[in-house]
């Protein structure tokens, strides 16, 4: 390349810039992880509630249940439905004791799920909540929830797991129905169970 003296200098500068772009894009992928979490929390995108498990299992703003709430909105009713799924690898069975309740926004409500350990071993699980529609998630405040901490059930034990919550009065007027869903995951070597499932095939 005869005319290479000047371009080769240009080349290395351009290559450096392009490599920087590559590195930037790679970092961007990892930056999306916290960004996505922030976005979900801010918008209720994906049904993530502000007091979810991802914050370390503790409510972010601890509200005292005794403290009287700002105005209960008696003019309307919201229906809350409960559902739950036990994920593969957890030998449990769960169902809500009430499938739905109707309440006024601002009113505190308590319900329970009945969870049973079907195996002959003590097992620890963790429930992960999700609220749908997503727009309702940020106005759905759990005051007490079995999902705040890990749950260990003795062999064959059945336990009523309580949940207390408020649907805040600021909730959009167009939302008349909210679904709260739990996915219960095994914390005892989920991987081992999966591997076993594969070996059994």
């Amino acid at each position, binding site marked *: 390349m*005869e005319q290479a003296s000047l*371009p080769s200098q240009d080349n290395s500068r351009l290559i450096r810039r392009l490599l920087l*772009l590559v590195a930037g*894009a790679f970092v961007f992928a990892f930056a*999306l992880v916290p960004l996505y979490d922030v976005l979900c929390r801010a918008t209720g*995108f994906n049904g993530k509630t502000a007091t979810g498990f991802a914050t370390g299992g503790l409510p972010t703003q601890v509200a005292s249940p005794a403290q009287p709430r700002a105005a209960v909105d008696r003019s309307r009713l919201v229906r809350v439905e409960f559902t739950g799924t036990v994920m593969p690898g957890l030998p449990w069975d769960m169902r809500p004791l009430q499938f739905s309740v109707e309440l006024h926004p601002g009113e505190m409500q308590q319900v329970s799920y009945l969870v049973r350990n079907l195996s002959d071993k003590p097992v620890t699980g963790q429930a992960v909540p999700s609220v749908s529609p997503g*727009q309702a998630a940020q106005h759905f405040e759990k005051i007490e929830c079995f999902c705040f901490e890990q749950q260990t059930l003795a062999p064959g034990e059945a336990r009523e797991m309580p949940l207390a919550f408020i649907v805040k009065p600021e909730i959009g007027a167009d939302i008349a129905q909210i679904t709260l869903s739990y996915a219960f995951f095994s914390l005892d070597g989920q991987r081992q169970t999966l591997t076993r499932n594969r070996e059994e095939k």
Partner: protein
Amino acid sequence: MTAIAHPSGHHEEHYPGGLLRWLTTTNHKDIGTMYMTFALVMFFVGGLMILAVRAELFQPGLQLMQPEFFNQLIGVHALVMIFAALMPAATGFANWMIPLMIGAPDMALPRLNNWGFWLLPPAAILLTLPFMLALFGIGDGAIATGWTFYAPLSVQGGMGIDFAILAVHILGISSIMGSINIIVTIFNMRAPGMTMMKLPLFAWGWLITAFLLIATLPVLAGAVTMLLTDRHFGTHFFNAAGGGDPILFQHLFWFFGHPEVYILLLPVWGLMPHVISAFSRKPTYGYTAQVYSFIAIGLLSVVVWAHHFFTAGMPVPALIYFMFSTMSISIPLAVLFFCWIATMWRGAMTFETPMLFAVGFIVLFGIAGLTGLVLADVAADAQYHHSYFVVAHFHYALFAGGIMGVMTGVYYWLPKWTGHMYSEKLGKLHFWLTVVAFNLTFIPQFFLGLAGMPRRIPDYALQFAEFNAISTVGAFILGLSQLLFAWNIWACVRGGPKAEARAWEGADGLEWELPSPPPHHSWETPPVIR
């Protein structure tokens, strides 16, 4: 090759003979040839996989294979066709043609170029090796999640997924090196007087593709790296039990995955105006409009990704945003269509094989665009999502748009590469068989999708039997007729009528100023641009 008079004379064509020549070459033409050959071989490998799938789908029920193997075939088919056939074919074009078209002596970074190519065969082996290992009872076969690697399935699956993750890493590194090379070549090695707005449209298309690759492939690399650490090192990026989020994977994947569609198509849109202008014997219509359309499509492509998973659950404002931004891509794309048609308008058109493929491309790719608009509609997508309608849509985009576009370019430049004319008769036969068999394969899949047949399932309800049988017959004709393509190329490499420097009388561009085939070292003295 040595028989060709050498314009500058002082460079001998010295390179080692045999295999060593190909292992060590830094010549853009040799590397281009290797890319194209690799792409053709992998095109048949991926094709064989999907023929096995279509054979299974010929009748309802399970006849030939277990569902696990079926799942592996569809996933690896897609990965092979996208990463090992279409992308290398486009890079092969870039290597062969960009230096010739912009009057550069070679690519800017020739050794990087060699490395970029030789990363591909190991990656292809990594992708397909799990099939072989499973035959010997090692592991449970290749990746069975489909090409999208969706978590949580991909967090749980067998070691085929690790193979695919590493293959994607290597293919990604190769593509990024190729892209850097192409950008540097286009920016710094143009012949004197060739301003950016005189750049051939093929180079423009590739320039946008290269930037998209650099911006989005690292995101895919990051996503599959997270997957790998989730699988083996106890992280919880996508594992809901540990506070992760499987939907996050879909965002990361499609942040790459949607631009990828345009990465595959932009080189084809770039070469199309050259072919259409040559066989219409008219200059390209709307050069500037096409350049700005390329740029607009490139920019839009990175902000529309979530339309691939409307049904995963999203707030209504997000649905509406992704719907309208997706639909807005059809505006610059329509500009391209109008430019192609306006170039043909009142031209002295003849229909040699490249032109047949170009016109076939315009019609069939148009169908891909229109059905894409249907899928972009949130309300309609809820019904069509994950159905055969989607399969038919993206095969119109990537087979009729991608592969047939590549074939257009191959037939157009084959005389330039080999110095021989291919058999026009076989080429036309290949075109008609391809176009009829392609529609026979995929039109029934639109109907199947509308009727509710889900994709990626090895069995189906009885009412889908007839259309599936038709589709399978079409797929086998389509697959077999590609043998004509391979034969035609082979025969053209071996011999045939001598090709002129300007193999097509209407062809315009610097590459046609060189003899056919061009000497091993070309444009050592840069051409002067008028």
